[in-house]
């Protein structure tokens, strides 16, 4: 299972990567939304975790681009320090599947990741 993580803050990226790797996931890190989009041209991960406030391409732009492609049913979890209601709403309206605010609880992150992966693989099976 491959997870693409878009996060511009290096220590936060390391933290998310460490937790997910310990849980047995393969992790590809991107330092901003633009780099994430570039990676998506050649790789299809099973899930995306993205920050919102990033240089070049923001997390919200990333969500809207990924979700506008009907061929890719990629689940996206937003992991952001912007916890205000309007930001959360906007992310969900653009198609985000889940929202976690920083500082995050590592166990909660892995539980939410696993839950979403089960849901998305389940929906594939049902088709």
């Amino acid at each position, binding site marked *: 299972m491959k997870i693409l993580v878009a*996060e*511009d*803050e*290096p*220590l*936060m990226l*390391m*933290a998310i990567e*460490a*937790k997910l790797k*310990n849980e047995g996931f393969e992790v590809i890190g991107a330092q901003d939304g633009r780099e994430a989009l570039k990676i998506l041209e050649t790789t299809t991960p099973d899930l995306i975790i993205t*920050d919102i*406030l990033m240089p070049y391409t923001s997390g919200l732009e990333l969500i809207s681009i990924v979700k506008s492609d009907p061929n890719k049913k990629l689940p996206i979890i937003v992991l952001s*320090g*912007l916890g205000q209601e309007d930001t959360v709403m906007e992310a969900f309206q653009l198609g985000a599947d889940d929202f976690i605010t*920083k*500082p*995050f*609880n*590592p166990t909660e992150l892995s539980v939410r990741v696993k839950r979403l992966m089960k849901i998305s693989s389940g929906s594939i099976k049902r088709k």
Partner: protein
Amino acid sequence: MSNSLLQDRIVLVAEDNAISQMLVKHILLKLGASSVDIAANGVEASQKFTQNKYDVVLADLQMPVMDGFEFASEIRTKLSSNVPIIGMTASTLHEEDKKCYEYGMNECIQKPITIENLSSAIQKVFSATPGTSSSPLILVSDGICVDLSMVYEISGNDESYISLMVQTFLDTMPNSLASMRQCLSEKNWEGLYQSAHRAKSTLSVIKVSEMFNAVVAIEGYAKSASHLDLLPSLVAEVERFFLVANELLGKKLKELSNDMISK
């Protein structure tokens, strides 16, 4: 939130309200306390205090029979103990705080008690009493508390990865601080907001709550362009806190590399 703050610590709570007793106990256990004793008033609490050894005492200020003030002064005088005492009050009066210190308490927090205000008070009382932080995950100096528990947890106690993360913190934070300083001098509030936001991310992995709180305030004020007069002192505060954190983490890095060599 750290769940090792109170690891192996025994806490005494003096509180007469049953719901508050449950709530405080729940939070203390969540913070890792190994056991929590409850007393319904100051007299009962004093009895327990003479029978057991406690690492921290929480005392509600308003209790029947013997209130929190009297109980605190009894601990300090009759029982001559310097155990950290945290007062809990439902009152919003600033006078109440002052009275707490006069009666020998170390901190005073306002109800409702939350995991945030309680853990912040506990960190403060531990950092003020030298040598009370025995956990390798919590580094304390000069009123600053650096919490590494998340780094240990996510890395599965892998010391080389922990070193790398500490090093990343020490490399990243000066950039964020320099950028905050520059934006402040240019009155670039959007830029200040963004660099504070970035620093907040860093500080939510290696947690320095004193820096975190100041950075959150900067983030909010810069975003709304309000309380601009407070920003210079807040930025200076974060810089000052970082000097202490920097020294603590530098020492930690050396310890970690010594550990790895000896293994």
